């Protein structure tokens, strides 16, 4: 008979007797299958904002590599770990059927307890959350929690327990910065609640891509060999007992990890402590490197002057535009730091970094001096860098926690165009979604100049007696209803109140240009249509 093994960590970091316990093994296997389907998505995670990727682990018995610190257990008075388990059930809206949501899914991560009495997780864990729960590691006690502040761009969220006393006794973590060459500890929890620590080597600090589209912020890249444990969707990375970063993504094949650095978390927390959450600022500028000597001559950069980037675009209504920056200016410095010809500056702590870091970690609204050359002459302009709200885009890159507005008019489904709608076509949406709408989304800053706030689309037609002959219409931008121009979805209900000679005249920006519905018939058939198609409501319009 086998004697039970002492509950210690061996060199491989798991309990020996656990390997024999069948339920655990089976669980890993299921995860393995799940992993196989999702490892491809890790590569796509940078493009696909839908949080289907997660930090995936596999349990390769006998093949584990990497160094793990053995953390001896104090059997008498174990110190309470500074993390709690977070169980989140998320349910996103189905933009193809904007009256319903997709099936809910649950995932679990580790939340870091902070000094402000709140718990830090990534935004992806609690995006579209229906229900969030915190669970104490050592006791299993649970309490519901709310999402207090969430930033989709920085991928961070703060959770507040319903019972403020829930976190009592847990020492919160402070923040600390780390640098290239540092070893960080990745924290995971055993099923007993004991801490599992794995070493991670910080190899790179650079401005990198975050899961949300078009977001680049300071990012840590690490190499580490992690084992599978439950709740590993979000993991804290610790240095000298302080929080240095939060795991952003992990690839089991390459063993590469990315993490949100403390500097970004610090900015998020400082912002969250204020009365309103602003976000990470931008200047609204695009740049190109100036290595090409022919470009340097054209831009009139004086010979002998090195560095500088060429301003290729100034977004309309942006802080850069307000400050007077123009296309063709050569940016040579930001906040007193010199910019080289590739767009990098020398950071005191991290060395060469993209100039984006000089802007994004400013406080939203801060005035930052931009040194530039215009026609070869130096000047300085102060730019009040600001976060750009997702809603300010004509086609918003994401919609935060807002049920989509829609109107099913006699079978015609009207809704507002956002990238979330385009992403319903899946990971390959850029190729699969209607090309015209994808083009509008990518080139919106060139195509729209303030004439509309958002675009209303006829997304599809549900066959009814009123929509006979219109069944094949879909993915059309609606420009006017009843001769009233639509500047956003809010105008739809207003326009429908004024049928012309008893008809709703619906105009598009392409074929067939105009169609008509009988206003009285559409109203009369509304209840029937709602019943036939099982719509909870014929429309949803949020108060503006």
């Amino acid at each position, binding site marked *: 008979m086998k004697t039970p093994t002492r509950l210690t960590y061996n060199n491989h970091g798991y309990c020996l007797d656990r390997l024999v316990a069948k339920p655990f093994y089976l669980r890993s296997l299921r995860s393995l299958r799940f992993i196989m389907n999702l490892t491809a998505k890790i590569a796509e995670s940078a493009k696909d904002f839908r949080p289907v990727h997660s930090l995936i682990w596999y349990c390769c018995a006998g093949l584990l590599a990497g160094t793990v610190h053995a953390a001896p257990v104090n059997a008498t008075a174990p110190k309470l770990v500074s993390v709690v388990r977070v169980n989140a059930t998320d349910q996103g809206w189905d933009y193809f059927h904007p009256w319903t949501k997709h099936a809910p899914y649950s995932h679990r991560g580790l939340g870091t307890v902070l000094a402000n009495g709140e718990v830090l997780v990534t935004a992806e864990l609690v995006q579209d959350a229906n229900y969030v729960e915190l669970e104490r590691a050592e006791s299993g006690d649970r309490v519901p929690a709310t999402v207090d502040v969430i930033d989709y761009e920085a991928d961070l969220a703060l959770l507040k327990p319903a019972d403020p006393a829930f976190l009592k006794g847990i020492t919160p973590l402070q923040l600390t910065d780390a640098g290239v060459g540092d070893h960080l500890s990745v924290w995971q929890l055993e099923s007993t609640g004991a801490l599992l620590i794995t070493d991670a080597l910080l190899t790179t600090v650079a401005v990198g891509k975050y899961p949300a589209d078009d977001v680049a912020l300071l990012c840590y890249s690490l190499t580490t060999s992690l084992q599978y444990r439950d709740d590993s969707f979000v993991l804290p990375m610790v240095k000298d007992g302080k929080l240095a970063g939060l795991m952003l993504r992990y690839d089991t094949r390459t063993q590469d990890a990315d993490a949100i650095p403390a500097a970004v978390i610090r900015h998020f927390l400082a912002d969250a402590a204020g009365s309103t959450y602003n976000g990470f600022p931008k200047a609204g500028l695009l740049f190109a490197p100036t290595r090409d000597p*022919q*470009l340097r*001559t054209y831009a009139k950069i004086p010979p002998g002057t090195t560095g500088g980037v*060429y301003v290729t675009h100034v977004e309309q209504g942006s802080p850069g535009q307000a400050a007077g920056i123009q296309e063709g200016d050569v940016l040579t410095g930001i906040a007193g730091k010199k910019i080289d010809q590739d767009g990098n500056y020398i950071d005191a702590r991290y060395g060469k970094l993209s100039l984006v870091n000089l802007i994004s970690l400013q406080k939203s609204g801060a005035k930052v001096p931009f040194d530039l050359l215009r026609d070869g002459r130096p000047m300085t302009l102060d730019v009040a860098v600001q976060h750009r709200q997702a809603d300010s885009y004509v086609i918003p890159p994401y919609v935060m926690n807002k049920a989509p507005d829609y109107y099913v008019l006699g079978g015609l489904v009207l809704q507002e165009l956002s990238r979330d709608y385009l992403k319903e076509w899946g990971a390959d949406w*850029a190729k699969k979604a209607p090309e015209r709408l994808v083009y509008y989304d990518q080139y919106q800053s060139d195509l729209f100049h303030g004439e509309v706030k958002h675009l209303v689309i006829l997304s599809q037609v549900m066959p009814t007696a009123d929509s006979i002959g219109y069944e094949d219409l879909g993915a059309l931008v609606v420009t006017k209803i009843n001769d009233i121009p639509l500047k956003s979805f809010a105008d739809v209900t207003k326009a429908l109140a004024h049928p012309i000679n008893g008809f709703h005249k619906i105009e598009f920006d392409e074929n067939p240009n105009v169609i008509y519905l009988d206003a009285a018939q559409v109203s009369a058939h509304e209840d029937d249509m709602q019943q036939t198609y099982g719509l909870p409501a014929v429309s949803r319009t949020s108060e503006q």
Partner: protein
Amino acid sequence: MRFSIRRVSLLFLLLASPLALGEEVVHPTPPSAASTPSIPVPSIHRSLARITTTSQDPNYREPWSAGPIEEAVGTGFIIDGQRIVTNAHVVSNSRFVTVEKEDDPHKYTATVQFIAHDCDLAVLKVNEPGFFDNTTPLELGGIPEIESTVSAYGYPVGGDRMSVTEGIVSRIDFQTYTHSLVDSHLAIQISAAINPGNSGGPVLQHGKVVGVAFQGYSGDVAQNVGYMIPVPVIERFLKDISTGHYDGYMDLSIATFPLQNPAMRNALGLADNDRGVMVSKVAAEGCSDGVLKEGDVLLTIDGHSIASDGFTVLDGSRVEMAEVVERKFKGDDVKLHIIRDHKEMDVTVKLDAAWPYLMQANTYDVSPRYILYGGLLFQPLSRNFLESYDIDDLQVRYFYDFFLQDDLYKDHPEIIVLSAVLPDPINTYLGDYRNGIVDEINGEKVRTLDDLANGLRKQSDQYVIKLLGVGRPIVLDRAAVESARQRIDQRYNVVKEQNLRD
């Protein structure tokens, strides 16, 4: 998936050749009265031609180089005037054409006299005398009835001599002619097996031509589905070329929307009679511009009533209303009875062909146009170009797909794409700008390839090329380009730096 019979015939031709080489010469035994049956010689032999074409496709990736050479076999038939009718795709991009008769060992050289890429027909002239001796020209019949029997004659895969297959008429419908991929005309679907090599061959009923076999579906996709070009299309082609010049098909250059929704009919003041379609677009470069307007309801075309689904009745059959225009020629009139702003009126459109849709057509017998400057290759966007490059760029795809629909041709009659950068020190920082669309050169708008050529011809120390939607201009120092010219030409085997003509 449709295929062009000619292209696949090449594959089968290659497969067929080893068999041909293996044929042995049979020494004839002395004939005895009843023992040796003779091979029958049908009279149709005297009307057929076996056409062998050597063609050369253009090279869009290296437009200064000649393209690959291919050989293919198709069929043709003899008509009056010592002419051979065949498909355009049998003789497209041809460099050398020979024709043979079944009982004649001589290979005759031939030339393409007229070729119509918009309806896949061509007429050949034979260069040497003697071909038409002992031949019988075929006559054209009419449109055969559904379910009646037809026979297809030609030189498909499976042997070297003429073959016959028989089937029935399955369907008569508008189909896309895959040769150009932008043209649709009447086509007759038959169940007779039509295979690579049959292209250009006649399909007969009661001894008269009722169609030219031209395209079909491969057996993996559909069975017994072959198509023939019907007599109205053949007749129109022969009439068009009788002037000595092929003008091609005309169209109204409008888009219409069916008026089947009752509320829409009420709103437009139409009776509940399933008649009329609405004009949803009038192309600016088309012949209806200035005559028809968006919102017009079309009720009759040349006196024929238009149904609410866009169909009309011609010669007792229900056909798409475009068929009326199909039978007309350049300069002909089309009379339309319309409703505009609730008032009935008559308008007349003088027919012409709109050019912008050709950008999206397969084109043949053309040389790629391009400019190579400083190692940067500029070419106009077209279907042929896009197929060679397989460009993924969203902006290029949008400009191609919506060229007509969004009137992009107005500002950009030609979409000039920076298609390649031949790496050299003078352009080493410009690789990222591949697939950009040229907007301006030195402040002047570039609307065609000629505009770009003119811009580069003007003396200037620098050429500043702005691409659409790209803030960073491409700057080329003239002196640097001149000094690099020979180096680039030699390294990349460039024999000609630009071609501005088709």
